[in-house]
């Protein structure tokens, strides 16, 4: 075979392998989708059997209006937690990051390292004292508790990520503004924040997704059905006598649709945040 033919064959082979892998990878999601839109009687022998094939949205409406764990309530609660748990740590962390990047403060290195080390601590390491603390503060079984823990657990990586970003911004602009009499806060708000917008975009996308996806905090801190976030409700939808996979699949799809849509729309920020460092 000619070298050119060989190369063509190689390219063909690589494409074949790559697309086979892609197909394999997407099958579970495809199965989930198929299961969610078909009546249970058609699934008993597997979702891949297409005869008979009837489309129904019954699973979605029964998950949405479920008697014990209505997803309509869960999705609303998830929003009520994830939105503030994104905005608050973003601004608090940006302030902190600016301070750590530009000012010389007493004990700065020690304080910064301590903050960053928290990144590596698992949530389970603090859960028992936090539970007692929230009980004493009267915050158990409240969405406020979830906003607080998700905020605190976001601050270390946001501070680290934004500090590294701000360190790469040329300082001349800030110095010029200071000579013109701008205060520290004015410099931060008017000069640094606008330049840091792409980094803030990455922070927002990743943090929203993490807050939305959190299960552990929600499991420990909330127990009433009207205080549960959507992810927390999923295991409750399993059913008592048999696993209602149609219902579970429909609920799963509604819950995962939010982070997936966000990823599809803001992929660039997402990947940049992931690569530009986001240990969690």
């Amino acid at each position, binding site marked *: 075979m000619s070298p050119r033919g060989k190369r063509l064959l190689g390219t063909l082979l690589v*494409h074949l392998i790559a*697309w086979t892998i892609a197909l394999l990878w997407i099958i579970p999601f495809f*199965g989930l989708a198929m299961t969610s839109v078909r009546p249970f009687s058609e699934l008993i022998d597997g979702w891949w059997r297409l005869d008979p094939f009837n489309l129904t949205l019954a699973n979605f409406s029964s998950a949405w209006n479920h008697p014990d764990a209505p997803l309509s309530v869960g999705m609303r609660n998830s929003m009520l937690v994830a939105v503030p748990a994104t905005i608050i740590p973003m601004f608090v962390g940006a302030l902190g990051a600016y301070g750590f990047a530009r000012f010389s*403060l007493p004990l700065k290195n020690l304080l910064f390292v301590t903050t960053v080390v928290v990144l590596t601590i*698992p949530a389970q390491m603090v859960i028992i004292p936090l539970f007692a603390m929230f009980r004493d503060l009267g915050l158990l079984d409240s969405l406020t508790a979830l906003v607080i823990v998700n905020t605190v657990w976001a*601050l270390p990586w946001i501070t680290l990520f934004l500090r590294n970003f701000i360190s790469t911004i040329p300082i001349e602009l800030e110095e010029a503004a200071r000579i013109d009499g701008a205060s520290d806060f004015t410099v931060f708000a008017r000069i640094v924040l606008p330049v840091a917008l792409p980094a803030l975009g990455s922070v927002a996308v990743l943090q929203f997704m993490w807050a939305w996806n959190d299960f*552990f905090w929600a*499991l420990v801190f909330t127990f009433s059905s009207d205080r549960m976030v959507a992810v927390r409700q999923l295991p409750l939808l399993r059913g008592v006598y048999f696993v209602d996979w149609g219902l579970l*699949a429909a609920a799963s799809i509604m819950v995962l649709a939010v982070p*997936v849509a966000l990823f599809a729309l803001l992929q660039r920020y997402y990947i940049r945040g992931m690569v530009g460092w986001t240990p969690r």
Partner: protein
Amino acid sequence: MQTLRRFTFVLPTLALVFAFAVYPALQTIRLSLFLPTGEFAPLANYAEVLSDRRVLNLAGLSQGRFPMGSLVHTFIWIVIHLPITALLGLVLAVLLQNVRGGGFIKSIIFMGMVIPGAVGGLVVRFLFERDLGIVNQLVVLLGGSARTWTAYPDTALLSLIFGSVWLWTGFSLVLYSSGLGTIPRDYFDAAKVDGANELQIFGRITVPLLRPITVVVVVMSIIWALKLFDYVYAATMGGPGRATQVLALEIWHLAFVRGNFNQAAVVAVLLGVISLTVSIPMLRRRR
């Protein structure tokens, strides 16, 4: 005066992190030093937890039978999950460089990183169901017999680990892909001119140059495996017969199901110490 004013920039972050992370972490350490009776006995407490069959089941371990204890399960998880996802991610990153639609394929593979871990757990459980799961179609095709793989102690943990490979290979793939983009093209061209074949280029140029990324992938994968909770909870809740119990789940179970805060604190401290030790190479690099 200026220093004081400038300190207010970092104050909110520090106050929140110290109040809700550092302080409770220290309290957990304190808690781990006491027996449930309130007696100060650090050695006895740690010894008791480490000799507990829930954490370390030597009988199960020596016979190769599950459950082997949550410490062993977490260890097995890392030993299997880490090399497979790291290598698969690297190979796919190289492979997809020259594939039309490679970006789209990467997004598909990355989807497991985007969805909640609890959803991942449910989907994996579904995959391995006896009648409804598609895995059994393949098993039967290959001459095996169908069963619900997550419902038997001998196969449950492995099923979950392979499920987690499906979910989280996207992480190393994306990191390695971005790393490949930073290697100058000339390196590969020069090697080709010198007559190196693809395999030599991969082993002698690509892999060594991606070393910093490998450090991040290895450390992050271990930390994730140590913290693993929602995925296992949704899939099996640690069952059947504790065969998929992992460390993070063990802490929750000890504290909030059995109500033994002191023993839970011991396992939590162990988990924290392991995580911290593992992260040191990466924290050094990042500063």
